[in-house]
């Protein structure tokens, strides 16, 4: 009986959190018209979440691209189709690895930064001070960070995919001797606009999910050192799990 109650309590808590996040998202979206009048607030946050994540995104993109080059070459060489490395890398990066790995890195780098920054602002009364100064913290703090994250995420994914393809080309063409023309022409011939749009849609959805979780966790963090730490951890864990679940759902719909 107590186990049943525990299960129902957990379900109720889950529904409560989902409901609270939806309401929080609506409050954020309600501030968009005001933010259009002050784009500098969003641009600042695109820099914080996007530009400051570039190094980690580019480094990881390069190495993942190089690993793809090695693995695909090894597999395709068994069938005498080494020239198809470019196609495999492009489709893999565009449809799966680009959006997913970028989102996981985004959650780890930018998501934690957002959650801890907002959580610390609450713990040090900066959010309360804004409320007393008649400045809505949803408008001034939360919404610009959320929208900045949503815009930055697809841009980072595009950079990740570009650098990843460069890494694959570096290994397959420069090191393993795949013919350059075949590598690029097969890629151009087999990658369609639908494949690109799949990647864009996925990275936009992941951007919304990661940014919303980060700002929600930060804003609702218990205003103590432990509370902010927990919010930061929850941001990474929840984002990572949600990205993989959403990835499956989106893939199932898109195929």
């Amino acid at each position, binding site marked *: 009986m107590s186990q049943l109650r525990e299960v129902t309590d957990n379900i109720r808590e889950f529904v409560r959190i989902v409901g609270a996040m939806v309401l929080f998202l609506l409050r954020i979206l309600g501030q968009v018209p005001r933010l259009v009048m002050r784009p500098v607030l969003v641009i600042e946050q695109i820099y914080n979440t996007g530009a400051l994540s570039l190094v980690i995104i580019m480094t990881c993109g390069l190495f993942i691209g190089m690993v793809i080059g090695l693995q695909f070459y090894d597999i395709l060489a068994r069938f005498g189709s080494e020239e198809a490395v470019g196609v495999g890398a492009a489709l893999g990066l565009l449809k799966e690895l680009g959006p997913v790995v970028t989102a996981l890195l985004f959650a780890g780098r930018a998501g934690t930064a957002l959650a801890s920054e907002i959580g610390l*602002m609450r713990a*040090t*009364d*900066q959010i*309360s*001070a804004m*409320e*007393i*100064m*008649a*400045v*809505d913290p949803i408008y*001034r703090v939360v919404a610009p960070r959320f929208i900045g994250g949503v815009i930055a995420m697809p841009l980072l994914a595009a950079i990740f995919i570009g650098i990843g393809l460069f890494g694959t080309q570096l290994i397959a063409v420069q090191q393993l001797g795949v013919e350059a023309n075949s590598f690029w022409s097969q890629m151009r011939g087999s990658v369609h606009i639908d494949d690109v749009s799949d990647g864009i849609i996925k990275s936009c959805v992941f951007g919304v999910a990661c940014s919303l979780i980060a700002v929600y966790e930060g804003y609702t963090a218990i205003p103590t050192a432990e509370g902010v730490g927990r919010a930061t951890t929850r941001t990474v864990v929840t984002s990572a799990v949600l990205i993989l679940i959403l990835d499956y759902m989106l893939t199932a719909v898109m195929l």
Partner: protein
Amino acid sequence: MARSNLVDMQAEPLPAATGTLVEIKDVHYEVGGRAIFSGLNLSIPRGRITAIMGPSGTGKTTLMRLITGQIKPTRGQVLFDGINVSTLKLGDLYKLRMRMGMLFQNGALLTDRNVFENVAFPLREHTKLPNELIRHIVLTKLQAVGLRGAAGLEVPELSGGMARRVALARAMATDPELLIYDEPFTGLDPISMGMIVRLVRQMNYALGITSIVVSHDVEELSILADMSYIIASGKVVASGSFVELKDHPSEIVNQFMNGLADGPVAFHYPAPDYFEQLLSRKA
């Protein structure tokens, strides 16, 4: 600041009070089933410095949050200039808060901007004033708190006293009618404390505003406040001038004003029998 100077300051003639700015009427407030206030009544006279005192945990800061509309009472009314704060919609509440300023215990300065930008923040958010005019206003406010020279400093470079003075300049930036000070003396050295006492008094009478000072520093409040309320057990247990409170017959007021370790506010938190607990294995 020498105590004699502060006493002289208190002797300055007061402008006449003109009615009540804040009125708390039969306010009840509960958190998790625990009553913080049960029928609280008090009035804050316009143009005066009013002290809210009481032992720790009696809800002094909660009262400030009720006045600023950050929380709503379970029952009763919180009136600011006749407007019921607890029934306002968010937009109207923000409009009302434009008439208030608050000094937080830790200053609550925005750590991603320097001293100048902290003071400029409410002006940039609420006005479309040109940068040159904002610069003049900010420098005037910083001059008033003696920190014009610190305009370029970052927040982590400030001492506790400086942070509170910057926060005071920021609270004053939009010329509010009511200034609320939450524990403004906590953790300050005597010099910084003297500066804050002087600033609160000067700001109040030079600008004709109303001030509420929440604190348990009896000595400083005795110099600063025109009238005081002592809150305990969810109600006002005494009110009046410092002299009236000193001679108050209530035991709890006597314990608080004279800093007695034991009395109606017990030294020991409620606990089971000491001997039995030592013998048992429970914590």
